[in-house]
């Protein structure tokens, strides 16, 4: 079969359709002020985290080279005061963003990937595969994930990799349920039957038809889950399961130091507030973006 010269190829057509869908989605997203505010906040924070090595000096994180006094209150030299060894809290907060955001992103990707695979397989193969997989999913869904994550990161060597693994391996069940439900509705549609009738195998149907249709939902779920992963990271680090290296702080480990250094009794609010507020802002921004995206996909959620 040859394609007439002035007619675009099927691939180009598909891309044009995707482009149009994206533009329409973006227009809907841009109507929501909260979503835009969240996106703007995230852009600024991610940019600051990426540029941290350019605009600041990493040497300032070294405890032995700290220039400030012990828990100094904010001044022009240290805008947010210093911690117990005399490091700038502003510098620490900025550098912590790198670890906290990385762990949040990677752990969420891991968890959403596991959830998507299990959800699609459970819905596509049905019968006992589905029964077995969903039994496991339900089990992990009710299991207190923090307890499981604590157990995992106690037994494995402490570090960023372990924390990512602990969060990723314990937070996938809700994604799996969501993806399974969505896959079931998609597999019931006629175009899947057509693909099967034309001889499409399992792999073809899943990768060419089911996956593209499920991905928008997965994307929304990812956006909403990053916030939870960042909070989970801070909790695990607070409990002392994070990276012990002081040159690689995260917001959670900063709060742990503040707690262990009795910043509460010393009244060192400049040591206590910045990491927590940073977590709050980032999580809120992800939630606002996620909710805006959710209403792009689900018109029922739209206001008015």
């Amino acid at each position: 079969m040859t394609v007439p010269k002035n007619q675009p190829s099927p691939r180009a057509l598909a891309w044009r359709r995707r482009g149009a869908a994206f533009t329409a989605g973006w227009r809907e997203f841009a109507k929501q002020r909260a979503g835009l505010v969240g996106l703007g906040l995230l852009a600024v924070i991610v940019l600051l985290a990426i540029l941290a090595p350019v605009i600041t000096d990493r040497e300032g994180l070294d405890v032995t080279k700290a220039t400030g006094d012990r828990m100094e209150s904010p001044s022009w030299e240290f805008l947010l005061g210093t911690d117990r060894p005399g490091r700038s809290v502003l510098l620490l907060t900025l550098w912590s963003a790198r670890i906290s955001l990385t762990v949040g992103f990677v752990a969420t990707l891991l968890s959403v990937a596991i959830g998507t695979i299990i959800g699609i397989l459970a819905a596509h193969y049905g019968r006992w595969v589905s029964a077995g997989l969903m039994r496991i999913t339900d089990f992990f869904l009710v299991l207190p994930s923090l307890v499981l994550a604590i157990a995992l990161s106690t037994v494995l060597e402490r570090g960023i990799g372990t924390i990512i693994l602990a969060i990723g391996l314990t937070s996938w069940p809700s994604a799996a349920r969501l993806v399974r439900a969505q896959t079931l509705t998609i597999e019931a549609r006629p175009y899947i039957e057509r693909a099967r009738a034309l001889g499409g195998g399992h792999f073809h149907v899943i990768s060419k038809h089911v996956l593209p249709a499920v991905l928008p939902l997965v994307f929304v779920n990812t956006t909403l889950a990053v916030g939870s992963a960042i909070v989970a990271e801070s909790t695990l680090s607070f409990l002392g399961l994070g990276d012990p290296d002081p040159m690689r702080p995260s917001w959670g480990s900063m709060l742990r130091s503040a707690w262990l250094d009795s910043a509460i009794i010393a009244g060192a609010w400049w040591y206590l507030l910045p990491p927590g507020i940073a977590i709050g802002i980032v999580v809120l921004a992800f939630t606002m973006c996620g909710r805006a995206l959710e209403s792009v996909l689900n018109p029922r959620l739209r206001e008015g």
Partner: protein
Amino acid sequence: MSDILTPTEEALAEAPPPTRGGGALRYVLTKIGGGLVSFALVIVLGFLLFRALPGDVVATMFRGRPATPEMIANLKHQYGLDLPLWQQFVNYVGDLLRGDLGDSYVYRVPVWQKIEERFWPTVLLVGVSTLISVALGLWMGTRSGWRRGSRFDRISTGVALALWSTPTFWLGMLLLAATTGLFPTAGIVYSDTPPDFFSQALDIAHHMVLPTITMVAVTYAQYQLVMRSSLIEEMGADYLTTARAKGLRDDEVRRKHAVPNALLPTVTLVFLHLGFVIAGAISVETVFSWPGLGRLTYDALRVGDLPLLQGTFVVLAGAVIVMNVFADLLYRVLDPRVRAA
């Protein structure tokens, strides 16, 4: 945790499918059987995590301390770690069935004894704060969902989202910093309180104020958000129009028709998210040194006391599973549609 924002899909998936025949007894047996299978999985997982993972258990126990090869071999023998893996598993399950969770490495007492003395403080804290946060969340969610877009809705949803975004332990630390001197900062009761019931209860209540506020602040938000969106889903339903057409006042339509229906998915979620509450309890108990299972978990992980950690894992996970079976049974009583099927 992200699933709190899409309550209906999850609640639908959770709803027990209508059974044909068989009836109540079969339903109850299925649910209890499912709970037993889950509990068996917890026991296996507890073994896999603490014995079979590549990390060296004994090395974790000696973390940071010098140990001679003889000491390590001794300890391995004492805890039965030199046996083949399958033998260890058989011993572990056998001990567990006899109610023996092994001995704590640090406290030198049976793990079970330690868990028993820490169990009730946690039940007290989690129970009281769950009751308060469910009541608060349902009330706020109903009010904001019924008048969607009102000022109350916008402000309370914003506050709920903000509180939900904050790490539990940080909120606890802020409360401690903000109320210095007003409330006790640690423990459950002062040692010099008179032993009579009234003084003891008052002192415990005094100690409980801050931990409870922290727990409520981070958990009520999800109940509110779920109740709100669940009520909004019901808003367009025909039976509400019928109720209004009958001439019922707005208040009655809400109280007698909309809320009972919106309540069902929310109640299931309250139980489904108990794991989240337990996570909150671990942070809160750690910050306020509340002598419960959460603090015990923290102490165990701080010193690498693996038998104790294994014990708290099995007990906390088991408790959540029991509560979920209970929720499934309760759901049947609450939902007339499921009851009739």
